[in-house]
């Protein structure tokens, strides 16, 4: 299989096309938490009850007139396969641990995914490339209406949709954007941005790595509050803040280009060079260098490389994915060698 075919086969279709404002916003996601009335939540359900939930959802999804989703039983997948699913955000890290009567149903393009028996009975999400939170909500809302026509969701007039964790109760909705902010980081403006955002009912965390040092300048911004605001209000708030972040990020990228063009170009081209020729590469280093290259592409410093290389390689070079492609368990050292080889190959593919 050629590398191109492999990428097309392995990656979610939505990843292969860039979305609006994708120079800053990598992806938009909206997920809804739902539970079936009367049956204990997954943390407390007996295997029999968990099975009941699984079967009910399976039955609801058999009607493919509205949504054509394919259901996979997680207990039938290997650990590597589950990890790879997590790395492309189809399932959560908690779900990737697997277990009995846990499942995921997804659409062919992998835009839609429905997790069964995660923290809640149902976690439905829609994931789009670029800045499209409203569109993601529109689709997940339709999916929710469809599921509600088949299943009896736990809902209270007072508290809204009832969830295992009280931090999700109400709308049960978490709307988020994944943003790439190398400009703000190089201009030392990240801390200010993080503080500002957290004052507005939103949470920011690094996509990779712990603490404030987010690897690859990738951040996830999402709503913190789920109760007492409507879905529209929550999305509107996230959208407004994200627009401001986009504006700021672009401003600082231009400032850097104006004031420190040689330093910036040197940094970007060095990272590019390492990716093109290194023999061993850790996933941390890969993410960091790929972030530089993506910035270089967005600023026109690196030409003839598609911007998508970034999102593709960020997923493909994760430990689980790498092992899935190779179809075997690899030691960390072996992974670093395969990772470097894959990156070299992928970057040359786009040059020719």
């Amino acid at each position, binding site marked *: 299989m050629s590398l191109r075919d492999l990428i097309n086969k392995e990656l979610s279709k939505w990843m292969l096309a860039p979305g609006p404002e994708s120079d800053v916003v990598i992806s938009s996601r909206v997920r809804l938490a739902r*539970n079936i009335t009367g049956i204990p939540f997954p943390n407390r359900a007996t295997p029999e009850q968990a099975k009941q939930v699984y079967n009910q959802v399976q039955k609801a999804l058999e009607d493919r007139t509205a949504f054509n989703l394919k259901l996979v039983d997680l207990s039938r997948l290997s650990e590597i396969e589950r990890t790879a699913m997590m790395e492309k955000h189809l399932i959560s890290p908690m779900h990737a641990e697997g277990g009995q009567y846990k499942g995921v149903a997804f659409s062919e393009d992998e835009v839609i995914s429905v997790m069964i028996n995660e923290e809640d009975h149902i976690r439905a999400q829609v994931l789009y490339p670029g800045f499209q939170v409203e569109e993601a909500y529109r689709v997940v809302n339709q999916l929710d209406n469809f599921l509600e*026509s088949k299943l009896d969701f*736990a809902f209270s007039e007072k*508290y*809204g949709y009832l969830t295992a964790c009280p931090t999700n109760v109400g709308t049960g909705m978490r709307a988020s954007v994944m943003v790439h902010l190398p400009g703000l980081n190089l201009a030392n403006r990240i801390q200010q941005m993080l503080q500002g955002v957290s004052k507005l009912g939103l949470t920011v965390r690094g996509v990779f790595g712990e603490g404030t040092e987010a690897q690859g300048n990738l951040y996830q911004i999402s709503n913190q*509050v789920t109760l*007492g605001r409507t879905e529209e209000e929550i999305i509107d708030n996230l959208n407004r803040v994200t627009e401001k972040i986009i504006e700021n990020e672009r401003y600082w990228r231009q400032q850097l280009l104006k004031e420190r063009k040689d330093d910036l170009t040197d940094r970007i081209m060095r990272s590019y060079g390492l990716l093109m020729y290194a023999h061993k590469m850790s996933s941390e280093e890969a993410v960091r260098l790929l972030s530089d290259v993506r910035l270089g592409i967005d600023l026109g410093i690196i030409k003839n490389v598609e911007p998508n290389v970034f999102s593709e390689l960020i997923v493909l070079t994760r430990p689980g994915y790498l092992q899935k492609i190779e179809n075997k368990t690899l030691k960390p050292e072996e992974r670093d060698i395969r990772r470097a080889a894959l990156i070299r190959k992928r970057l040359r593919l786009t040059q020719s």
Partner: protein
Amino acid sequence: MLCQNCGERTASVHVTRIINGEKTELYLCEQCAREKGELDFATDPFSFHNLLAGILKPEIHPGRSFIQTDGDQCKNCQMSFAEFGRIGRFGCSECYNEFDFRLDQLLRRIHGSARHTGKIPERKGKTILIKKKIKELRNELERAVAKEEFERAAELRDRIRELERRSMFQDGGEG
């Protein structure tokens, strides 16, 4: 007032228990209240293993009142409120009903609000609206009976029956 447990120290903690609808009141000293261990005390207010658990634990302060209810267990899934405090997750959707009276404060701390204003599911929403209407009509019926307006009462009774039939259909049918 002396502590009702030891009868020695001055009572400074007021515990109200509501078990199977029966209210009992207890006046204890701080030491006995801690020793009885019925309440999940925060012994060190600064040690938050878990932020949520920290929010939930009632702090023992002289002069404060506490309310306990029904052995503190959800009837549907048997989760206790103390257990919820430890793991930070409810056991089932019924827990929200069972622990209702303690939720407002918790939810307001998390969300700044304790009332849902967002989406109402279509099918279930209908049942909620019908149930609300039935409640209103029942109150009206009582008033009509009290005022001896029997013709009006009969009319209201018929409307309630009709709505009850529809709500049963909503609940049971259309699965």
